[in-house]
């Protein structure tokens, strides 16, 4: 009985995302933005050279960041704050690995549209009820925490028709984490093959995309890409729950990609920053702060 009143004591704490924007606050390191307007000066070159995972490069005279490698350590932003900076936005999951490469030039929209329409066709039947099978293929353990967080009352993905399932036979989405260890290659492949069609694979985190800090080695394949065919990549080390949620919604065609927003950023104060559509302007979701109540029943 006391648990009932305890459960009701704080009203609704659940986020309204994706219907309403939400996020972790202005200082959250959601992603790395590159200012394309500036040439490649010496400080920028140094920052590129110091990147621990080789996520930065110069392509056609412009700085490019590979979000599939960026572990958000912020070293480049310290060395060259005029070009690199953190942004609190989280909706940077992409369809296809190459779309994680962000720079000044336009992405290959044609290819992307083709891939996207193919994925949309596959996932059309899943939209109202999606079952996810998670497989750890060599994570550092933090990705599992963030995935598990999706079932807490703040994210509560059940409200969106998203469920975790034990059996791969019931799963629509394979949510894989980790660097792709040689030990997990067979279990991961077996899980994928046990899933019915249509199926979608999400690589959650830079470890799954590229191996991240661990990279390829005697025990790691540097990502899961050569074990299972990946459809959607969620950047981040680890990706935040909002980032994961965005990736899942992207996989089933319920949200669009953030596009090339990373390249339009202007340097300057926080107020000057372009506000990504998926990010709350006022900071962290107030509903999560104890004591605050959201307008119950409005949803």
């Amino acid at each position, binding site marked *: 009985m*006391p*648990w*009932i009143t*305890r*459960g009701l004591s*704080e009203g609704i*704490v659940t986020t309204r995302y994706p219907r309403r924007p939400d996020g*972790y*606050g202005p*200082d*959250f390191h959601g992603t790395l933005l590159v200012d394309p307007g500036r040439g490649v000066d010496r400080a920028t070159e140094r920052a590129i050279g110091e990147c*621990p995972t080789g996520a930065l490069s110069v392509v056609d005279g412009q700085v490019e960041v590979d979000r599939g490698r960026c572990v*958000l*350590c*912020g070293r480049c932003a310290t060395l060259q704050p005029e070009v690199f900076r*953190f942004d609190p936005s989280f909706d940077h999951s992409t369809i296809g690995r190459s779309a994680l490469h962000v720079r000044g030039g336009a992405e290959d929209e044609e290819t992307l549209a083709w891939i996207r329409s193919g994925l949309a066709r596959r996932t059309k039947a899943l939209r109202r009820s999606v079952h996810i099978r*998670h*497989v*750890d293929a*060599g*994570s*550092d*353990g*933090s990705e*599992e*925490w*963030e995935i*598990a*967080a999706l*079932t*807490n*009352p703040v994210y509560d993905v059940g409200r969106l028709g998203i469920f*975790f399932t*034990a*059996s791969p036979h019931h799963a629509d989405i394979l949510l894989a984490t*980790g*660097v792709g*260890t*040689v*030990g*997990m290659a067979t*279990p991961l492949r077996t899980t994928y093959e046990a899933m019915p069609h249509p199926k979608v694979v999400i690589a959650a985190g830079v*470890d799954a995309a590229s191996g*991240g*800090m*661990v990279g*390829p*080695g*005697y*025990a*790691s*394949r540097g990502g899961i890409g050569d074990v299972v065919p990946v459809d959607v990549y969620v950047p981040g*080390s*680890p990706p*935040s729950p909002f980032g994961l949620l965005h990736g899942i919604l992207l996989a089933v065609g319920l949200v669009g990609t953030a596009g090339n927003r990373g390249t339009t950023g202007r340097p300057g104060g926080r107020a000057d920053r372009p506000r990504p559509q998926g990010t709350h302007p006022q900071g*962290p979701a107030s509903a*999560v*702060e*104890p*004591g605050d109540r959201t307008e119950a029943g409005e949803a």
Partner: protein
Amino acid sequence: MVSALEDDAFADNAFPAAVADRVEHGARFVGLFATSAPGGTRILAVLARGHAIEQEALLLPAGRTRYPGLAQRVPAAEWYERAILDLHGLEPTGRSRPDPLVFPLRSGAGWPRPTAGGPPRPTDPDPPSPPPSLQGEGVFTIPYGPVRSGVFEAVEYLVETPGEDIPHLRTRVFYKHRGIEKRFEDMSIDDGVLLAERYEGVASVAHAMAFCGAVERVAGVEIPPAAGAVRVVHAELERIANHLDSTVRHVEGAGQAVAFARFSLHKERVMRLRGQLSGSRFGRGVIVPGGVSGAPGLGGAELLQAVDRLEKAIRADCRLLLATPSFVDRLRGTGVVSPELAARYTLVGPVGRASGQHEDVRVSRPYAAYGHLGQPLAEPRSDGDALTRLHVRFDEMWGSFHLLRQAADDLDRTEADRTEADRTGRGTGSPWRNAVGPVSGEALGWAEAPQGEVAYLVELHEGSLVHARVRSASFHNLAAFALAFPHDILTDFAFIEASFGLSIAGASG
């Protein structure tokens, strides 16, 4: 003390005898590491006695692959010997060849031995499906994992059972072995911290502190006082988040839906507070060699407010949970780790502290700002069941809140000093970080992770890593996990696992 192995490995028992002698006279076995050394390979046993670290080393000449094993006299060394065989190809004598643990390979080349030059070539693991250890009517094996129901890290438990009891359990962690120790080689110190944060992602702060502690010891650098306070803040929030995670897994297993919602909400709030402080929900990027990366995202007063709010809400729910009979009954008497077992395996962290092993390196070998912060003495416990471990976790959370409040006060004072220094223009360097030069040498660093003591053995050459050896609390404690099922049945498994609260990433490397 260094003993060189001259001729016959089988006959030389000086090394195990020396280690066992120290253990019998009150030293605590911390870990066993293999590293390259001039002229061969070094096996290094690290022990702790009160405030002091003790070492015993054995030099194996190049080409020798056998050494006198410790495990018969020091059972806690068994998993270390298995890992050393898998990763370095060095076999302990005096016992049967141990089972593979972290990376079972086909025999042959490609092993990342500490003496090998360059990166090893990729190899395939050869996971044997081992024959059952138990014989008996109706005994069968349930292979539980590596893909398990729910969101878990990959691990396989081979449960040998006649139906209900769990007379024998084998833990197989090699599925997610990532080869991190090899990856450390030749890295810069700054990159090394980032990798250490990912050795055991749920204890990023503790691993980064242990790594940086070793580097700072080599360099002879002290961290600024304000940096010490920031390190404490992040380390204690990490501890609270881990203990809440363990609690969430307990109540989930017991089907307590509201308690699940409440405790996972508390955990989310802690994670968001960590995100506000550092930009990362796991406190990554905060700890750097020589200090911390900068001022925390919240001032001392704001932090204090947030901490008070959290503690009030968490305390109320913990009280209610411990007064919920349908929950407590599942834990009482479940998964008993006797004090004798805990002593034999020198268990650390909450698992050890629930069974009479009270050492906490925050107290015995203080680092960061722990030396001058008042630390509450927790009630000594030794019942060793899952309920006692949960009590220990709750006690530790209250201790963490106590430390957080003091550290927040420290930060408040730092802010005041900074303002004063800025006003008078007498600011002296960074209050957050002291420079670490391109130093050479070897040292041990440690930290009390939420799972228990983490230790890093780091050797540097002119500022870059020669090698790093990691001993995580998860690895150390998981060795005893299989022995915690004396009177328990299959349905107790989830509670015992949750009450150990270990990370497989930390155990498999």
